[in-house]
């Protein structure tokens, strides 16, 4: 009994310590953002790595999710004679929920793990120590561009995901099932609200981007300088990142009603 309690207590302490260290790390990144020099070049490189290279998987997944939604939605709605609302069903579920969340999960797996592995490898090969020796702050040069790029890239990827999804739904509903194309788009247009739905979706994506960026860079930065350390940093980025996204998704939805 006492050992159980002790292990629970130890886990709680470790969790809190980790949370505190992460908050410190986030503050360090924020500080690096406002201190000159501004590192544009590494930021653009990260936009390429995190954004452009994730594009294919995002667009493909978006289209397929949209098609599935179109098929499922159509089959359900047609029972109630409400197949006209397909556009609204596909659009609203993509914009409000699936777009930001699935994009963030995919980006965690694709870009977040790569980021953690990259920084972890730099730790293991003592490149960050090398930077410190040259009195270059590694948080400034390596971590911040990655975290910022992840934050900036997420709303863009999420928007692309949603647009691909809407067209996927259109493909199934209109081209395959023979629904009227105008009806699909009209029901989308009349039911989606700009402030409530679209802006909220962007806000969600932005928060998720910041979270994934923080988790990935933190895990990489604190990785043990061994190959096992790098691999466990990569794994835990995906696990912690995904769980964080889902938990925050609930709270954002509950608090802001998005």
């Amino acid at each position, binding site marked *: 009994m006492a050992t159980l309690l002790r292990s629970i207590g130890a886990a709680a302490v470790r969790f809190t310590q980790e949370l505190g260290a992460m908050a410190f790390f986030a503050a360090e990144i924020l500080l690096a953002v406002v201190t000159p020099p501004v590192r544009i070049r590494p930021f653009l490189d990260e936009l390429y790595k995190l954004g*452009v290279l994730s594009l294919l998987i995002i667009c493909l997944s978006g289209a397929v999710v949209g098609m599935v939604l179109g098929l499922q939605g159509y089959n359900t709605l047609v029972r109630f004679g*409400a197949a*006209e*609302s397909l556009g609204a069903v596909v659009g609203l579920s993509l*914009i409000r929920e699936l777009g930001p969340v699935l994009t963030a999960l995919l980006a965690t797996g694709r870009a977040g793990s790569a980021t953690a592995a990259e920084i972890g490898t730099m730790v293991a090969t003592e490149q960050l120590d090398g930077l410190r020796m040259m009195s270059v702050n590694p948080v400034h040069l390596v971590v911040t561009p990655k975290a910022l790029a992840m934050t900036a890239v997420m709303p863009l990827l999420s928007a692309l995901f949603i647009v691909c999804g*809407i067209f996927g739904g259109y493909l199934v509903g209109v081209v395959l099932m023979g629904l009227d194309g105008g009806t699909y788009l009209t029901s989308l247009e009349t039911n989606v609200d700009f402030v409530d739905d679209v802006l909220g979706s962007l806000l969600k994506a932005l928060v998720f981007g910041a979270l994934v960026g923080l988790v990935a860079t933190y895990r990489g930065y604190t990785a043990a300088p061994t190959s096992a350390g790098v691999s466990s940093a990569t794994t835990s980025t995906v696990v912690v990142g995904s769980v964080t996204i889902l938990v925050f998704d609930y709270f954002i939805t509950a608090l802001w009603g998005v």
Partner: protein
Amino acid sequence: MPNTSRRDLVVGLFVLAGLAALAFLSIRVGGLSYKGPGGFRLYARFDEIGGLKPRAPVVIAGVKVGQVENISLGDDYRAVVEMDLDPGLRLPVDTSASILTAGILGDRYISLQIGGEEEYLRDGEEISFTESAVLLERLLGRFIHRANLQNGSTE
């Protein structure tokens, strides 16, 4: 990895594509479209709009000719619906407006029935003939009430 200038170009294209997707979402889907000054506005008063929402379509013979711009409560406690219609649309003064539903669970929309007068409605005028939304639950309530009355009279 491609050379730097080509990569920058790709990054630029990516950002542009993302922004285009955002613009599509806000303008085409979110209904944030810019309204030109030439929009033709008409008003209509209804006793019951039953779930009509702004941006609901206004149709003539099933063809969309505009959308609901704004809904407010008038002085006489009736709903005042402001419609934004295609400019150049000529509607006789005895045109009537009714609120209909697309399917049983579908969205409400406004349908205009064209009248036969020679004079035409001008920008900002009000459609005088309106037919309110049919509320399914009220209809059912009336039906049940009548059925009860009939049962009562036969007993």
